């Protein structure tokens, strides 16, 4: 750790300030760049930072060494997007014969529709949604085209099929892309079930692909629901940034905010929407009214604020780990009734312990170390 390390909150502020006020990037010291680059990279924001600096005409003015990293991140993001669009075409061709609506979700939707969050973004799994009645046919069609179940554990597969709102992830044999086929945007077992029918009904077709994307309100609500209800915060800051970009983009139309609130009420997602708006305003709104003192914030707001820190070791202090743990449990609690949750968590806990004491380290995960193996 570099000497005299700033607090996690300060580190986040440094990254966000550079993103929001790129014209000031020229005054960052090399030491500050040594913090900004890894923090942004681990948060999935490095390519976005490159785009922001380039748009502001600042990219050429920052020192060469950090600039190389920004440009490399953007190159990777462009590559991902290029590959993603090709992959979407393949998926569209595979599922078209089924004759059912196929709705792209999250990152894939942003990329296919050319929305602001797609710029400077990396994409991992491809999320899409089909009607529940078409789930098995979709799975068969994908298997015939080369996608196989990525999880081999029978418990995991059963978990997904019975309780969750998606099939187990499917990975393509050769291309290694992963698809998550959903039938709803929230688990059917969840405390607050979200009916997928209105989402299908309001979806719109894409111009050049035989697939659909959710209405703007639903894109935002799904992203908010995913971020605040599922307990997974791998790219939390970036996901919130996506929501902020979408809000700004669609709010150009005067009635949008009103429709968004109505839609949230209809789908039962007012809680995640409220959280999204609150945290986006706290973190991204340059003209935010003086921030509420910590004493007056709710416990949940404090926990989520921690979860929205950059996913880098310098921000992963013990209070953050505690907050993440608590929110992870909450995410599960929201997803499953207690009678299902307790055995599920007990099993997960046992697996962690067993793996921890096993003498042999297990096989490295392929995508992390595939390149590394070539280098030994």
């Amino acid at each position, binding site marked *: *750790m*570099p*000497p005299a390390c700033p607090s996690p909150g300060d580190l986040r502020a440094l990254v966000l300030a550079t993103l929001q006020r790129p014209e000031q990037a020229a005054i960052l*010291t*090399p*030491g500050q*760049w*040594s913090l900004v680059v*890894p923090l942004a*990279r*681990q948060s999935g924001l490095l390519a976005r930072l490159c785009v922001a600096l380039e748009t502001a005409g600042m990219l050429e003015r920052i*020192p060469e*060494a*950090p600039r*190389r*990293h920004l*440009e*490399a991140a953007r*190159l*990777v993001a462009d*590559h991902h997007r290029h590959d993603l669009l090709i992959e979407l075409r393949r998926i569209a061709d595979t599922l078209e014969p089924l004759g059912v609506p196929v709705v792209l979700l999250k990152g894939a939707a942003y990329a296919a529709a050319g929305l602001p969050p797609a710029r400077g973004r990396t994409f991992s799994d491809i999320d899409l949604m089909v009607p529940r009645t078409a789930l098995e046919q979709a799975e068969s069609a994908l298997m015939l085209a080369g996608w196989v179940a990525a999880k081999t554990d029978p418990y995991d597969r059963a978990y997904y099929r019975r309780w969750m709102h998606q099939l187990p992830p499917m990975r393509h044999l050769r291309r290694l892309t992963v698809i998550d086929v959903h039938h709803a945007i929230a688990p059917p077992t969840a405390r607050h079930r979200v009916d997928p029918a209105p989402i299908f009904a309001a979806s719109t077709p894409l111009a050049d692909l035989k697939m659909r994307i959710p209405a703007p309100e639903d894109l935002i609500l799904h992203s908010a629901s995913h971020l605040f209800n599922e307990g997974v915060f791998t790219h939390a800051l970036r996901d919130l940034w996506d929501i902020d970009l979408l809000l700004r983009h669609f709010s150009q139309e005067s009635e949008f905010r009103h429709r968004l609130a109505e839609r949230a009420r209809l789908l039962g997602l007012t809680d995640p929407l409220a959280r999204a708006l609150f945290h986006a305003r706290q973190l991204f709104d340059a003209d935010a009214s003086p921030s509420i003192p910590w004493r007056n914030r709710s416990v949940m707001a404090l926990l989520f604020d921690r979860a929205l820190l950059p996913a*880098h*070791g*310098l921000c*992963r202090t013990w209070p953050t780990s505690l907050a993440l743990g608590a929110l992870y449990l909450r995410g599960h609690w929201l997803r499953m009734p207690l009678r299902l949750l307790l055995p599920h968590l007990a099993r997960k806990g046992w697996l962690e312990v067993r793996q*921890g*004491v096993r*003498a042999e*380290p*297990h*096989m*490295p995960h392929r995508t*992390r*170390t595939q*390149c*590394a193996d*070539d*280098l*030994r």
Partner: protein
Amino acid sequence: MTAIAAIDRADLARLMAGPGLAFRAGPFTVRVRSSLAGMVDHFATLYADHDVQDNDAFVDFDFSLDRIGGPRGWLRPLAVLRFDTKRLFEPLPLEQAPAMMEWGLNWAIATHALHFLILHAAVIARDGRALVLPGPPGAGKSTLCAALIHRGWRLLSDELALVSLHDGLIHPIPRPVSLKGQAIDVIRGWAPQAVLGRRITATRKGDLSLMRPPAGSHGDVERPARPHRVIFPQYLAGPPPRLSPRPRAESAIELARNGLNYGILGRAGFHALIDLVEQCDCYDFTYGELDDAARLSESW
């Protein structure tokens, strides 16, 4: 700039356990933190001639190497390598920590240095002209490279050929040379003055030892070299050594196969590769004895 050798060993240990050792590796600045004695030895011995960098300079790659904590650590002493504080690779026995460091740095460069076309190849140079020795592990490129750098050639790299997308020159990044299996004893005999790190046993690729780059590699560390020749080496005991020309088109394809970031560079990578091949005569070279290779290399 001071070299790592100028730092007192106790101070080096304190530095590495605290803010970390920042040093230049070719065009990059690397910072490593570690509380492991083996890692202090690694840098003191094998990176002795590398320049130290101030801790407030921009750091390209940040690593830490520590003993694994918790119940798992009590059962078996394992080392964990982290890049940007994130775990890279599965934990391995402590004695393999130096190897993890080198693999980790290779990975970081290949993944993030996208202003270079990076080939899996050794690169040596004479009179400003570079000889590229591509090859997958086992072909003998590291051994050949380790031998020739003690017979008048300058080491640019034993693992990663950094071909600039901007000007097509190959940029030096002298680092410890990997010697595997029998090559360890062969090179000890060939170059008794060479400094080798501890022999690491039972890695996934057998025994491994790392060799310090000769001091001469560093004086020219800022000077890239123009690609001149590509030679695909293959160790073959028995038959006499053979150098045979290889068609450029075929060589280009083989080089692309040895490309570590070729795919992601797209068109720019393709053009850089073609430019390189057009400038170079390409050959296959089979050899069984280093003496033969050294003798023949006089004319390369």
